[in-house]
Each structure stands twice: as structure tokens, then as C-alpha cells.
């Protein structure tokens, strides 16, 4: 019995149906974690990419070092680090927030590279024309560069969304009750792991497929030349 739902282990099918509502609560947590993490990754990634292009060497090198470090160390290690070490510095976050933050940080390092490539792909002539029109650096990014790079980076950013969604179960190791966490608990209580774990895998499949389809639709809907932000 969890969240008011009892399980029925008489046959695999009844077992699966009876724990489905419980896993539904986990699905909600999974989606929330992915949403928060992805939002962090999208915004922070852009900030990192822009800072990395700063003319002030101290800033660009620090950001480059941070990005490489985060990219090249395992998510699980970072997650443990945030969960167990941050409280030593007086920063105590709920497990869910810690998990979403870890996902967001790791993926912001990935998305910053996507943004960086996207910025680099905007032709030099566009920068020069914007400079000739006396647009400040901020305006060049806001009005010319970012709008033009969006259609180019949507596919790569979409891949990271799918990939992040699939990585959310890592959060269960820091006590977040996502689908995997709940399936694990059901297993511990019923000594039946096969059905709950298979079910978790089965639920992920349509989710990622739907995600990929949505990204494809967005990709097709965006004008190739870019979208003005204002």
C-alpha cells in the first residue's frame, strides 16, 4: 500500500495494473525534475556560452574551465557531491531541488557547447552589418545572433531533452521518489522486482518518443532564417 493504492500480486497483469497509479506519482516527479533541470540547462547554458565569449580573459577562462570540468565528470558524482557536501557549507536543499540542480548543471555544460556552435555559425557579415549599424554588443546578440541561431540549435537541444529525461532515474539514489525510486520500494516490499522495473522502462519509451516527435514538429515549424525575439 502506497499513496492509498494497494497492490495485487496474484498475477503479473493485476500486479502491473495495481501499481500503475503509484508509478503515476513517480512519473509526475520525473517530469517535474526534467522540466526544472531542462529550464536551468537552457538558460544557464546560454549564459555560460556568452560569458565564454567575454573579452575579459579571467571570465572566459573560468567559464571554460567550469564547463569542461562539469562535462567531463560523471553526473552521479556531481549529484552525490551536491547532496552530501553542500550541507557542509550550510546550503541545504530538498532532495528534489538538489537532483534537478545537478541535472541542470550537467546539461548546461552540454547546451553551452550547442549555443557556442550556434553563435559561431552566424556568418561574420551579420556581425559586421550589426556593428556598422552601431548596435551595442548586447543588441547584436539579442536582435541578430540569438534569433538566427535558434533554428540551428533546436535539434541538438532537443536531443539533450530526451537524454536528460532518460537520466532522471539517477535522482532516486538521493531519495527522490521518482518512478524508479517507487518501483524499487514496491520491489522491496513485495519481493517482486520484475514487473515494477519493466513497467518503468515501458513508461519511458512512449515518453521519449513523444518528446522526439514534439521536437521534430518544433523544428519544422521554425522559419529557417530565424525568429525575431521582439
Amino acid at each position, binding site marked *: 500500500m502506497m499513496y492509498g493504492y494497494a497492490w495485487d500480486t496474484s498475477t503479473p497483469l493485476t500486479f502491473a495494473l495495481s501499481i500503475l497509479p503509484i508509478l503515476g506519482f513517480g512519473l509526475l516527479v520525473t517530469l517535474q525534475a526534467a522540466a526544472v533541470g531542462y529550464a536551468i540547462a537552457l538558460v544557464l547554458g546560454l549564459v555560460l556560452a556568452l560569458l565564454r565569449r567575454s573579452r575579459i580573459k579571467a571570465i572566459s577562462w573560468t567559464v571554460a574551465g567550469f564547463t569542461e570540468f562539469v562535462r567531463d565528470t560523471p553526473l552521479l558524482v556531481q549529484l552525490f557531491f551536491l547532496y552530501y557536501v553542500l550541507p557542509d557549507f550550510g546550503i541545504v536543499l530538498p532532495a528534489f531541488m538538489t537532483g534537478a540542480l545537478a541535472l541542470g548543471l550537467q546539461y548546461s555544460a552540454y547546451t553551452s557547447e550547442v549555443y557556442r556552435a550556434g553563435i559561431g555559425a552566424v556568418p561574420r557579415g551579420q556581425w*559586421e552589418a550589426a556593428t556598422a*549599424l552601431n548596435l551595442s554588443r548586447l*543588441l547584436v546578440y539579442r536582435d541578430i545572433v540569438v534569433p538566427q541561431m535558434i533554428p540551428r540549435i533546436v535539434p541538438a537541444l532537443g536531443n539533450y531533452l530526451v537524454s536528460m529525461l532518460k537520466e532522471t532515474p539517477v535522482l532516486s539514489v538521493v531519495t527522490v521518489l521518482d518512478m524508479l525510486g517507487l518501483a524499487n520500494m514496491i520491489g522491496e516490499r513485495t519481493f517482486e522486482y520484475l514487473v515494477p522495473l519493466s513497467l518503468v522502462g515501458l513508461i519511458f519509451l512512449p515518453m521519449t518518443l513523444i518528446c522526439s516527435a514534439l521536437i521534430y514538429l518544433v523544428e519544422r515549424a521554425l522559419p529557417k532564417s530565424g525568429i525575431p525575439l521582439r
Partner: protein
Amino acid sequence: MNPIIRFQNVTKRFGALTVLDNFNFEVQRGEKVTLIGPSGSGKSTVLRILMTLEPFQEGLLEIDGTSYHEPNGRGPFKASEQHLHKIRSNVGMVFQSFNLFPHMTVLRNIVEAPVAVLKMKREEAESRATELLRMVGLSDKKDHFPSQLSGGQQQRVAIARALAMRPRVLLFDEPTSALDPQLVGEVLGVIRDLAHEHDLTMLLVTHEMRFAREVSDRVCFFDKGRIVEQGEPNRFFSNPQQPRTREFLSSILGEQGAPRESLKRAP
């Protein structure tokens, strides 16, 4: 009267290559100057330095009395955004490859900078843009995107866009070199009309010799980072003094000897 542009002993290097060597050059207010010469002779670099797209290593450069160096002695490319902003407010540029913003309509391309930089009201900017579009003969294209226009039309929009910022100095960097031959005329027609504006100073890098002769007050021949010869166009073309100039002119006029369709006035 003070010249509006003054290069004093400017040296510009790309690595080991010296593109401008102790370069001295002055342009008077309202003057129309054509820069010609073989590729790599430094003529485009002069425009790009003026537009602050390239730094230079030595010498002084002034536009309308303002030095490209900041008063505290910092170099033109270590200058603050405010200082660069002040310099650029005098200058506009038309590029060989047009460089219109592909994600904006024609109108938006023209209106963007006046609204964002000059803080002009959008309605006012749009009515001025409409006026400029009429001037370049593209009133009916304001809601089109650049990709829907021909090269000649794109370049005319680019000219309107540069003019919308009310520059005192307008730079043309080979404005017709990327165009199909039958589209050259419409762009030259617009530039020719502009050449009648008394207050506008124009620097034009081009390979269209007949056009240069027709619109400019002065022609400068560049070779290896220096001005080898310059003068009033009729004298310059009919009686060039330097052997290098003669050689260049005969090579290029050989190709352009016959009157070109492209030089007729645009409709």
C-alpha cells in the same frame, strides 16, 4: 575647412603582412572619393578600419575631429563601447555581400537600428523607412524577406538601411561585385542619386571604372598599401602619370572598354 576623415601615418598589419604602410589620406566633407586598385592593395581595409571592423597598429585616425583613440591614449580597439559608439555614429557601410538580416522583413531591417540605437519612435522610423524604400525604388517590397529579393534589390535595401542611421560618411565596399551583370545598373543608379547629396561624404571601393569616373570628385589608385596616384577623375583616367596606374587601368579597361548596359540609369 577641416577634413572629415584624416589618416595620419596609419600602419595596419595582419600578422607579418603590412596592409597599410604609413598611410596618409584626407577626405573633405561632402567629397565623393573612389578607391581603386588590385585586390590586396589595402583599399577595402581603409573602409573596414573606418567602420571599426579592423584595428590598426600605428598612427592616428580622426573622423569629424574625433580620434579613434580615446583621450586617455588607449588604442582604437581597446576603446570603450561608448567611444566606439560615438565614432560609428558618423559612419555607415554597404557591404559586398549585402548582409541583410535574413530573419527580418525589409522594413524591419531598416527600422531596427534607428529604433534600438537612435531611440526613434517606431512609427517615425517606419515612415522614414518607407520614404527611403521609395527612394531606392522598392516601396512594394517592404514586407518581403531578404531571401525573396534579387541581389540588386537586397543591395538597394542595404543602402536604405545604412542611410536610415543618417551617417555623415557612407562607405561602399565593392557594392556591385557580388551581383549578376544585369543587376549592377539598378544599384549604381541608386548610388549615383546619392552622389548628388552635397553633405554626404562617400568612399567607394569599386571595379566599375566608368562609374567611378562619372560620380566621383577624386579617384585614388592603391597599390601595396599606399596611394600611388590620385586626382580628378577625367584627368586621372585620360592621363595617368604613374606606370603602375597605366598598367592597372589598361588591364581593367580592356575588359570594360565597351559601354555597358549596366551603366544606364535604373528605372
